């Protein structure tokens, strides 16, 4: 947990941004299969949080998880190789975009499934690595799943040190939040006696400062916490499937950190931007040249 500099944060934001944009390009060019959910517009969430996490903390990510991964591990090549099914992928191409696993990090593609799992990991951490926490990312739409409430209830009852990070981008696939969520996320947390913090804006430094004490409290008290980020999805849900109006998209663009930071320090931003763009380009070239991944199944299924 060495404090990152402003430049580190900017690099991290831009790495994710360029990574995601290149993914969409690769899709458009027919070089990718399956589906991919980019976090364009939401990069600041994991970038703000990651330095607040320690090595023993466990991150549970979801379908929109590239940013969560890249902010925690500086490993764009491993991620891209995974998505492209090339040698060196995080999970040898078996998991793909939505199913990543490393020590202390797991993502899966079934909405809501991760929260009860997170409670279990958190209970184990409290026993064996006290002071460590679980961070579980979910979207606003995922609050439709019953598993979320079963987990919140148990987390509160048993004081599971879990931080649920909600990336509330106002939409679930094509469904606006008003159409899928009654009441409020904050109100729902209150109903379970769980602390809830609302975060607006995308100033990484300010967010981090505001959240640090609340996260520390989870470490010491063991009480769960929900942090709700009001954010914006800049891109399509996966690829090309955006049904929002130009007006809505324009609002998402206006809220983006990219032009704001570019205007704030044009020169250093441009330098960083170029650096990360080039870095991602190099990663793409590297990974693209690799052979297909190999699935080293060392176990017989159902032996």
């Amino acid at each position, binding site marked *: 947990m060495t404090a990152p500099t402003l430049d580190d944060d900017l690099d991290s934001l831009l790495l994710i941004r360029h990574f995601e944009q290149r993914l969409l390009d690769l899709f458009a060019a027919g070089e990718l299969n399956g589906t991919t959910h980019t976090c364009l517009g939401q990069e600041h969430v994991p970038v703000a949080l990651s330095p607040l996490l320690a090595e023993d903390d466990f991150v549970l990510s979801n379908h929109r998880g590239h940013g969560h991964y890249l902010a925690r591990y500086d490993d764009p090549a491993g991620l891209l190789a995974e998505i492209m099914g090339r040698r060196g992928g995080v999970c040898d*191409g078996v*998991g793909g975009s939505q*199913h990543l696993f490393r020590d202390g990090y797991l993502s899966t593609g*079934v909405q809501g499934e991760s929260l009860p799992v997170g409670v279990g990991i958190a209970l184990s951490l409290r026993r064996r690595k006290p002071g460590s926490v679980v961070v579980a990312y979910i979207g606003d739409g995922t609050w439709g*799943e019953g598993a979320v409430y079963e987990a919140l209830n148990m987390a509160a009852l048993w004081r599971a040190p879990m931080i649920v990070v909600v990336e509330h981008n106002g939409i679930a696939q094509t469904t606006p939040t008003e159409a899928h969520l009654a009441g409020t996320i904050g109100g729902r947390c209150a109903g379970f006696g769980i602390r809830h913090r609302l975060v607006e804006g995308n100033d990484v430094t300010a967010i981090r400062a505001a959240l640090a004490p609340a996260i520390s409290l989870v470490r010491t008290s063991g009480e769960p916490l929900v942090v709700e980020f009001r954010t914006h999805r800049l891109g399509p849900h996966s690829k090309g499937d955006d049904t929002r109006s130009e007006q809505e998209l324009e609002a998402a663009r206006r809220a983006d950190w990219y032009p704001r930071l570019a205007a704030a320090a044009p020169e250093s931003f441009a330098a960083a931007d170029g650096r990360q763009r080039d870095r991602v380009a190099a990663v793409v070239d590297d990974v693209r040249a690799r052979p297909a991944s190999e699935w080293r199944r060392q176990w017989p299924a*159902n032996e």
Partner: protein
Amino acid sequence: MAGERVVEALNRGLHDLLGRDPGTLLLGEDVLDPYGGAFRATKGLSTRFPDQVLSTPISENGIVGVANGLALAGHRVLVEVMFGDFLLLAFDQIVNFAAKSVSMYGRRVPLRTVVRCPVGGGRGYGPTHSQNPQKHLIGVPHLALAEMSAFHDPRHVLADLLDRGDPAVFFEDKILYTQPARGEGRIDQLWAAELPAGPLGPAVLTMGRPESTDCLIICPGGVADRAMRAGAELLLRHELETQIIVPSRLWPFDAKPVLDAAGRAAVVCVVEDGPAGGGWGAAVAHELHTALWGQLSRPVVTVAAEPEVIPAAPHLEETVRVGPAKIVTAVWEATR
């Protein structure tokens, strides 16, 4: 209709079904226009039948429950579950509520809930979006299972499922969506399809001479294309003539229409695109062994996917899914 793709035929069927009865409702995630569902099967429905289409939160168990309530109140209800893997979230409502309610109150309580879901791999969606969950639901009393095929008009199949009064699940192999809806008639130079028992009976795919079949393949709609490729290969490489039977209804499985052909064939092969064991393949094989004992010259060959998750990378998917080569090998080895 000429030139239609399967997803278009499905979509047309859904339009017909909502149109024929204003009490028929459709629920699902992201089913509204302009999107019309993750695979676009529900396109146009919400525009044309705004009162009959309900876009839901992400709540698979809850949605099927709501459908069950509507069905209990007398509606016909179609539910779209976005990926077959997520059906597992709704098993309590499907098995413990829908299927059991038909009979557990001592008299027949008809429940017209039909759950549709895309299934299978081949699209690189990864292990939680590619499973074939059919096997989990076979043999549930009062639950009907059907699978989409390029030969059966989805409209007829869904209408039947909606009308019979037992809840049902309709499996739609993702790969099929964009393939041509074929119906009856010539498929290519080799194959032709017939529906001898009508629009709900099995499709029979032949190379022209059904009498002299060396190999009979029985498979659901999602596998038919791979079976045809295997059949072509068996002819070319081994000079074996193949007939393929594609039932629309997976369960309850009606063995009658296949017994004749199975009794005559040198090799009978049942193919399913999910892991073996406690699934459709063994169930069909057991029925055939029992019904045709003494007539079969060798055990029914079952071909299934490898017992594994469906990996994300396309080249790895092919190591797990059933492909034509696996069928060819299994049939060929059985003949030797």
